[in-house]
């Protein structure tokens, strides 16, 4: 019997349906973690190290405990279980134990009747330090053997050489995810020794594992719940206040709420790794790459977090979306006393894309070739070997299509307006129009999809048919990207009904969905929802000998043979799956092997106006063509492309955490600049559909690509306008002026 797929279901895949959480969000009654509240709750606050490296010589909590309204003050001595946590390596103490390893490391937490008292009590704790010299130079750290990972890639002929050679040293600064919602958590004791925790997260199951270990509690006595989240971008991949707020609730027997302020948020989550990269590209006279040699150095800061995986990504994407038979990469991620680094949108590929795309432009210039022709000539395509790992690219890789599509977008007219709001520097530092020079630049970026290197990457979903409609159960974190809509669309399309609700389960109700990161949830949780919905549909059709499921029942050859009430006559019918992507493997000692599950490619073109005398830049446009596999929700894709590009604009021209001797000098929104509406370029997008081999309906994850090649495209455009070499991002006025 052939199963028919119902077409035309309302709100299915391929349509730009509205978000189910949209109405509460525009009305202000969507409950974010920081909005949670109960009458008898306490407020938590954190005391932190003011030093990047210092020995703790005195810690006296008595003055805080003596204050009216203070209910608990906790330190490392109060940690009942494992003293350290960490996603990959448990190397970070829950509180600073003897020595602070980074600026802002938590030392103690307080629970008090109100927020103000909690903060004053945290400040009243007596903490004395013996400052130590912080290790802040990542090169020195690696020389001293302080690294989280070192890896090498050797592919092809180490002695190969090309006649055309370009070399460069590139740097990227520390970027912050700066989600608008700061870290927040709400912990409620259950009266039986356990607790429920609502916390900002990207992966509640991996949080849960670390929390119960540090609390020394049975896994089923702690339930982590998804909470409303104000953006993430990698910043919530690791634990922040989770264990602290849980400990305070257990110690006081009362619900406890903690919310970081903005400065704490800058101190309290991981950053994008700053990097230094040396590159040599060698090509033949026709521009074909012969060999790429690179040394990569990332600064992982004080604790491991996801540094090992970030380094691997940086290394495997050293060459970008190009063929090259001989590749030599030596890469390391250093352990220092700088702010801990970890996940941020693009995850290592951002850094090497900036360097390698800069190199491709240098090479094109030396060859006298058009930069896009050079890229087309070397383009990595499906069926090719990855130039670094050597693995064969399976599925689709429309590198040429994205280059062609972005080039075909019409260029904007030259600037012809004296409105200072349209000039570099804006109304505050206005350039005269006559001194403004326009530049255009391109870049292409490659990214892996989901987790790599043999990680057992899976997502669970349960799809339930009830008489009132379909429920999709998942513990995946919706952080704003629209997973909630995509899961609904997939279930609707498979089950032939628009009555689909997403139910966010806690860690006791369903298994892990994996992290909302690595561009993975559309494919992984989407894939799990798809598989569960198909399993449920097939089971219902088999039970009723039907060939089609519609919103009003089961059909056989066009005739209804059972209603939905019949289907659910003995109660809801459900199907539960654990979905896995194609198996990956750890690389061998030369970095070779099938380390990735899939690839996605994008191209960006930037147009900038620059005042070379003042060193001011206005990013006029950033256009993009994006490989999406299959477009499940075109409007949501456009939102990812436009939003991701803006974080690329930030890294290109304004976003930098300025760090001196390990201390962040600009941990506020006044001093850490994020693109505003007036900074934001116009964006034209082209969606390229080439269908992939394992995502639901051929979809690929696209969350990170927009942030990868947008930055080098903008810098290429500034170079084109000014002729300056520009080897560091963000580009500062002094880099353009040359002082």
């Amino acid at each position: 019997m052939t199963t028919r797929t119902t077409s035309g279901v309302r709100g299915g895949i391929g349509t730009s349906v509205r978000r189910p959480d949209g109405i509460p969000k525009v009305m202000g009654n969507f409950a974010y973690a920081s909005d949670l509240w109960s009458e008898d709750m306490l407020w938590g606050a954190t005391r932190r190290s003011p030093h990047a490296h210092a020995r703790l010589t005195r810690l006296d909590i008595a003055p805080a405990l003596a204050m009216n309204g203070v209910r608990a003050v906790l330190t490392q001595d109060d940690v009942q279980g494992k003293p350290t946590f960490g996603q990959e390596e448990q190397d970070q103490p829950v509180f600073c134990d003897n020595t602070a390893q980074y600026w802002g490391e938590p030392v103690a937490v307080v629970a008090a009747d109100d927020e103000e008292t909690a903060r004053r009590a945290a400040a009243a704790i007596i903490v004395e330090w013996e400052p130590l010299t912080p290790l802040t130079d990542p090169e020195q750290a690696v020389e001293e053997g302080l690294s989280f990972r070192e890896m090498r890639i050797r592919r092809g002929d180490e002695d190969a050489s090309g006649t055309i050679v370009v070399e460069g040293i590139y740097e990227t600064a520390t970027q912050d995810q700066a989600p608008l919602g700061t870290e927040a958590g709400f912990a409620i004791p259950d009266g039986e020794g356990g607790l429920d925790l609502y916390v900002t997260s990207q992966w509640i199951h991996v949080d849960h594992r670390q929390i119960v270990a540090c609390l020394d509690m049975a896994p089923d006595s702690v339930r982590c719940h998804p909470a409303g989240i104000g953006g993430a971008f990698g910043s919530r991949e690791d634990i922040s206040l989770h264990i602290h707020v849980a400990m305070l609730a257990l110690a006081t027997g009362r619900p406890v709420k903690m919310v970081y302020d903005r400065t704490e948020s800058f101190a309290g989550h991981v950053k994008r790794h700053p990097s230094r990269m040396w590159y040599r590209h060698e090509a033949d006279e026709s521009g074909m790459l012969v060999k790429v040699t690179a040394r990569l150095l990332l600064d992982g800061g004080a604790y491991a977090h996801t540094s090992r995986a970030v380094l691997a990504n940086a290394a495997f994407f050293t060459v970008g979306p190009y063929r090259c038979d001989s590749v030599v990469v030596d890469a390391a991620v250093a352990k220092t006393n700088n702010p801990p680094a970890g996940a941020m949108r693009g995850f290592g590929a951002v850094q090497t894309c900036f360097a390698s795309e800069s190199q491709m432009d240098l090479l094109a210039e030396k060859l006298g070739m058009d930069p896009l022709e050079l890229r087309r000539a070397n383009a990595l395509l499906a069926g090719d070997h990855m130039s670094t790992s050597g693995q064969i690219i399976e599925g689709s890789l429309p590198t040429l299509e994205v280059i062609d599509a972005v080039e075909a977008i019409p260029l904007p007219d030259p600037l012809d307006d004296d409105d200072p709001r349209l000039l570099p520097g804006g109304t505050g530092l206005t350039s005269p129009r006559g001194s403004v020079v326009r530049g255009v630049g391109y870049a292409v970026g490659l990214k892996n999809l989901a987790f790599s290197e043999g990680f057992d990457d899976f997502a669970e979903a349960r799809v339930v048919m009830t008489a009132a409609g379909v429920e999709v159960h998942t513990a995946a974190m919706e952080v704003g990207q629209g997973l909630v809509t995509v899961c609904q669309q997939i279930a609707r399309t498979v089950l032939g009904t628009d009555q689909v609700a997403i139910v966010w389960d806690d860690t006791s109700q369903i298994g892990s969905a994996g992290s909302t990161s690595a561009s993975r949830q559309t494919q992984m949780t989407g894939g799990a929802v798809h598989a569960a919905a198909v399993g449920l549909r097939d089971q219902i059709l088999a039970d009723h000998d039907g060939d089609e499921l519609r919103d009003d029942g089961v059909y056989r050859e066009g005739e209804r043979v059972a209603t939905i009430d019949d289907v659910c006559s003995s109660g809801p019918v459900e199907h539960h799956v654990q979905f896995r992507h194609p198996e990956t493997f750890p690389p061998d000692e030369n970095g070779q092997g099938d380390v990735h599950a899939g690839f996605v490619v994008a191209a960006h073109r930037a147009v900038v106006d620059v005042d070379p005398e003042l060193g001011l830049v206005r990013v006029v446009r950033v256009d993009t063509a994006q490989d999406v596999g299959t477009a499940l929700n075109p409007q949501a894709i456009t939102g990812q492309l436009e939003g991701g590009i803006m974080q690329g604009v930030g890294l290109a021209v304004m976003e930098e955490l300025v760090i001196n001797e390990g201390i962040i000098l600009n941990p506020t929104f006044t001093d850490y600049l994020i693109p505003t509406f007036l900074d934001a370029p116009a964006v034209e997008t082209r969606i390229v559909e080439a269908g992939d081999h394992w995502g639901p309906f051929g979809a690929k994850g696209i969350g990170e690509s927009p942030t990868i090649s947008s930055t080098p495209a903008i810098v290429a455009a500034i170079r084109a306008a000014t002729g300056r070499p520009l080897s560091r991002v963000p580009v500062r006025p002094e880099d353009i002026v040359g002082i």
Partner: protein
Amino acid sequence: MNVTIKINGEDRAVDVAGAESLLTVLRNDLDLPGTKDACEQGECGSCSVVFDGDVVCSCLVMAVDADGSEVTTVEGLGTEDDLHPFQEAMLAEGGVQCGFCTPGVVIAGAHLLEENSQPSEIEIREALSGNICRCTGYGAILRAFETVARGDV
């Protein structure tokens, strides 16, 4: 100190302890958590409210200075059955992702459209330049204004 503020058309009395901001009082004392706290420095606009006719960052207004004032928060803008056209357009155009900036954006956007029903692109960009959005890149928010200006909601 006792202060009375007309919030969303209703007089609300609150005992303000000291140096609290209007934002803190709205969120913690008056059960109006729709107004968001993201920077407490007047940089991001997440806490935007209409204060005696002007859009302000409520984190920069001392609660005691709000005595006798009229304030509109996101909770006072529309109802589920009767959303403000700009709220409706934000939904239609995908101007909402994580939504944390959204209360401030709809307050600032609705206020702009009240003063200027046909704003130009650069007028929109300038009027909303105090509202940081980290998710959308602003494109969908811009299209939401165009949708309202065209009368399509």
